């Protein structure tokens, strides 16, 4: 097998240029028109961003609905949307709009946020670079992952799902080059329910399941 080239990445967040939303209707309007990078940031890049990592919900829309609109029903419905389960960001956008529209139709009043609690639309650039590490043996993958940065875990296990082959992490794509021999590792990686984990937690879990798979071989 060719060695696995470990990459790393750093996230640089910026304002998107969209006006902040002060109520649910404005959120809907801006969300419907925002760029894919804004959508991707608020759904997927939250794990890598500088913020506390263990909130109730993984996406910013659900967090805002709960904390600043005070709408727990909406927060729960938005919070369960797993962006990695959608084939495309277009589908994710449609599903999100459906949830918001349903809530708007149920509500007698449009929920508002206080001044200062607006939803700020952001986007980010992911700067990717070679970490200078090569993994030559699948049996060593768990040990290497244990020592990886959050950036590497994010890039190879989460961000990878938006690259070809769509929906697959880089580790699995590498292991599939010798699918028969690497089945225990491939199954181990597939067993991880990753979306609700913080990156340090995900790193530990990936290392754990791979180490167990290695021990069971």
């Amino acid at each position, binding site marked *: 097998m060719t060695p696995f080239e470990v990459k790393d990445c750093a996230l640089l967040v910026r*304002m998107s240029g969209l006006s902040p939303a002060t109520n649910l209707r404005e959120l809907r309007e801006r969300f419907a028109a925002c760029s894919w990078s804004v959508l991707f940031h608020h759904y997927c890049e939250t794990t890598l961003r500088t913020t*506390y990592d263990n909130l109730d919900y993984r996406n910013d829309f659900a967090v805002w609905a709960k904390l600043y609109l005070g709408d727990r029903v909406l927060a729960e419905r938005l919070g369960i949307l797993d962006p990695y389960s959608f084939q495309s960001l277009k589908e994710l956008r449609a599903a999100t709009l459906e949830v918001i529209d349903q809530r708007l139709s149920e509500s007698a009043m449009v929920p508002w946020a206080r001044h200062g609690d607006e939803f700020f639309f952001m*986007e980010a650039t992911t700067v990717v670079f070679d970490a200078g590490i090569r993994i030559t043996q699948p049996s060593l993958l768990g040990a290497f992952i244990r020592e990886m940065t959050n950036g590497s875990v994010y890039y190879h296990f989460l961000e990878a799902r938006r690259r070809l082959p769509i929906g697959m992490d880089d580790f699995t794509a590498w292991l599939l080059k010798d699918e028969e021999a690497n089945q225990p590792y491939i199954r181990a990686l597939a067993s991880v329910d990753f979306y609700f984990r913080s990156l340090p937690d995900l790193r530990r879990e990936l290392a754990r399941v791979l180490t167990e798979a290695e021990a069971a071989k």
Partner: protein
Amino acid sequence: MSAPLSAYEGIVGSAVIRQLRQLGEKLAGTRIVHVNSTREGGGVAEILEWMTPLMGELGLQASWEVIHGTPPFFEITKSIHNALQGHPVSISVKNWKLYEDVNARNFERLGPMLEEADVVFIHDPQPAHLLSLCGRRKGKWIWRAHIDISRPYRPVWKMVRPMVEAFDASIFSMAEFAQTLPHPQFLVPPSIDPLSEKNRALETPEIEAVRAEFGLDPSRPLLVQISRFDRFKDPVGVIEAYHLVRKVAPVQLVLAGGGATDDPEGKAVLADVMEAAAGDPDIHVLLLPPDSHRTVNALQRLADIIIQKSTREGFGLTVTEGMWKGKPVIGGDVGGIRLQVVNHHTGFLVNTPEGAAHRIRYLLHHRERIEAMGMEARESVREHFLLTRHLREYLALMLVIARGGQVRFLEV
């Protein structure tokens, strides 16, 4: 003098240091100039003190220049600073001219270096006029706003805005602090240096000496708020919360901050605090000299709970410092405190003295939560608010500015 990068390896791990070195390699030789208005004192100088040498260690040619000004100049820039944060301060035409003249005199000295630099970081409004003087610049100029300019006093903002708009990009600490500008506005929260005097580990005897110096009882819980005596830090509200708790638990309170001799409003707040604290030997109001970093460090380590009950706040680095000492923080639900304090995880956000008292009592009744939340707070700082993350984002920013513009994905 800041520590070398390798000194942080034991705190953040070798992978994080290696990551910085990999990013630094991509920028080797890049000429960086930071410009601010003071070499010592204040958060900006503290950041540049470590950032400049660490950038140098990573292979960049980084330098830090300070503009020279007269006392009237700094009075004007203080007014600009306050106005950008929303205070209605008028600045005369004559004073704007003085502001520009002082910048022009500094440009005579700094011009050649600024013209040759690949990236120039201008920190806050004091040196912002330098850009308009640098007609032959080769590099990118970035305005770093360390303050909240979301609701500026409009007449002053009308004067500052054209200066700022001419930059290639700006950096704010939080989205809530930014203004709409016609260039990329990056978001880079500040950070603390875990090896600074204010944050480094202290030996037990030194901590105990501070306890003894201020007559703190080791057998009773201690609440500590570190901040200047400013109405927005609500020290009187903290005393109210203390009184509510004191009815049922034998707590002690330390309110520690710098002296207020040259600040009339600070004096008035301090007088209110002294009045509210009068006669209670368990309220310790400490006026500390500006260089009392180790004392502050020890007080935070002695605390059972850190309080930062602000009603308005910038980023709130005293919160970060308290969390780094492994303490839960009860903080006002404002500004950057929200980014750091998460209910039931790293502390509690509160809006009133009653709310603060309630959360203090909750923690005193659940002592095991103090320790668990404190540990979670410390790990959160390790992950997000140490200088290594701050440095990484500056390096990423320079790569984005130089190579990528506003793309979503940049492979370097």
